């Protein structure tokens, strides 16, 4: 698909903001046009990186699940973590990656809560490692914000 999608979205953002919005008279329409343009600018970045970010996050969560042996996790949590650690992406469609991301994050929440209940030094260390992952993942997902005026 050429021209590249991010380029088309970025130019469309510029046209909306600099050429369309100034020629509108209704305040509500001007505001909406600007917001739509801003979201096109953000979508340009997400189109390029979206699959990569999700696949990386999913891989990192599986790696964390592999580190949970010997912690004394309750019930069948250890078993479910092990099964998830051996999982694979169904496809590279964003919707499939999102569904797997949701499934893994749900399990991650359960793991975090269990570690907090254990209250041991290894549990606290893994808990801190998970927060490090979450912070890094959030930073990687940072949306670009255009410099305007």
């Amino acid at each position, binding site marked *: 698909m050429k021209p590249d999608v991010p380029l088309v979205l970025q130019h469309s953002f510029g046209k909306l903001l600099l050429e369309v919005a100034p020629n509108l008279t209704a305040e509500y329409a001007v505001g909406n046009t600007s917001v739509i343009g801003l979201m096109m600018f953000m979508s340009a970045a997400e189109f390029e990186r979206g699959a990569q970010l999700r696949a990386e996050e999913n891989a990192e969560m599986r790696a964390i699940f592999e580190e949970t042996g010997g912690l004394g996790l309750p019930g069948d949590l250890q078993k479910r973590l092990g099964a998830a650690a051996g999982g694979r992406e169904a496809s590279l469609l964003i919707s499939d990656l999102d569904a797997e991301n949701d499934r893994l994050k749900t399990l991650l*929440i359960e793991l975090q809560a269990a570690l907090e209940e254990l209250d041991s030094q290894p549990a606290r260390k893994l808990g801190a490692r998970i927060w490090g992952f979450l912070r890094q993942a959030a930073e990687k997902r940072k949306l670009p914000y255009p410099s305007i005026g």
Partner: protein
Amino acid sequence: MEEIAEKFAAYLSHKMPQASALAVEGISRIHGGASRETYRLTARWQEGGKEVSRPLILRRDPVASLIETERDLEFNAYRAFHPTGVPVPEPLFLETDEKWLERSFFVMEQIEGCQAASPFSPDPYGELAPKIGPQFFTILGKIAAQDPGAIGLGESMEKPAPEECWKRELDYWEGEIDKDTLIAQPIAKGAIRWLRRNPPPPPKELRVVHGDYRTGNFLFNDAGEIKSILDWEMCHLGDPLEDLAWACDPLWAFENEEKPGGLLPRAEALKLWEEASGLTIDPKAFAWWEIFAMVKGLAIWISAGKEYQAGNNTDPVMALSSWYCTDVHNRLLSKRMQEIAEEEAA
């Protein structure tokens, strides 16, 4: 838009039987009011042989909202604070009969010659910031200084026990996250568990909490004077530090943690609030409410995303709130929580 103008003119004629030849002119929707539809208009009528003209604001319930609130709560807050010196528009009519405009609404004075800044501008106030900043935190302190009972809000609002303030708010906003989230939220849920394990000391007294006191929710003029505090739809009784922490959230300062609201240095802001409120900030409690503010923010952005995805409200600002604000709060909150987790693991 003309249909709303005609229907609203009929409503005003009903409320003001002494007025004749009443017409509504120049109606336009204001962008950004994601919790209510907000319209600016001018009403003109004849009364006692004279022509009267009054600029008004109409706030109508939306079909679906960024936050679910009761419009009478906001109307009562305007009515309570209007005589106190806290700048708010004069509230005029509250209408819950849906026959007039299909949904409930209220009407208030329009503050002319003023603007509200965008909360997402890197420098929303420019050279006026040093003038606006002290007013912003002083007014918030004045709100916290009010005795809720003395201004008529003591009976109309739920009164939690002081030691229950934090739990009431946290329970509510966690419930909103659980109800509306479209994807698992490990950052918000982890922060909530920490907040529950480390409750704050209670406030000495219950005060009115505005609930959304921040950049973008007040009007100022070209001289840098704050003329009106808006958007009281989330006001409640609680710990006044909740408001201060929300006002200081870095989301409202383009992520600048040391210049709340993009207005003035943090230490100066907190000192002005203490002077105006007559209250002393407990650092432990304030740190708790700062983390809570990010959780509350996430709850609001998550709910906005859900409403948009479900097609209940496709106003673009709902989608932008869910994308951009969730992104900012997830980054800020995960940073804070990682720091705490590393301290606890050391």
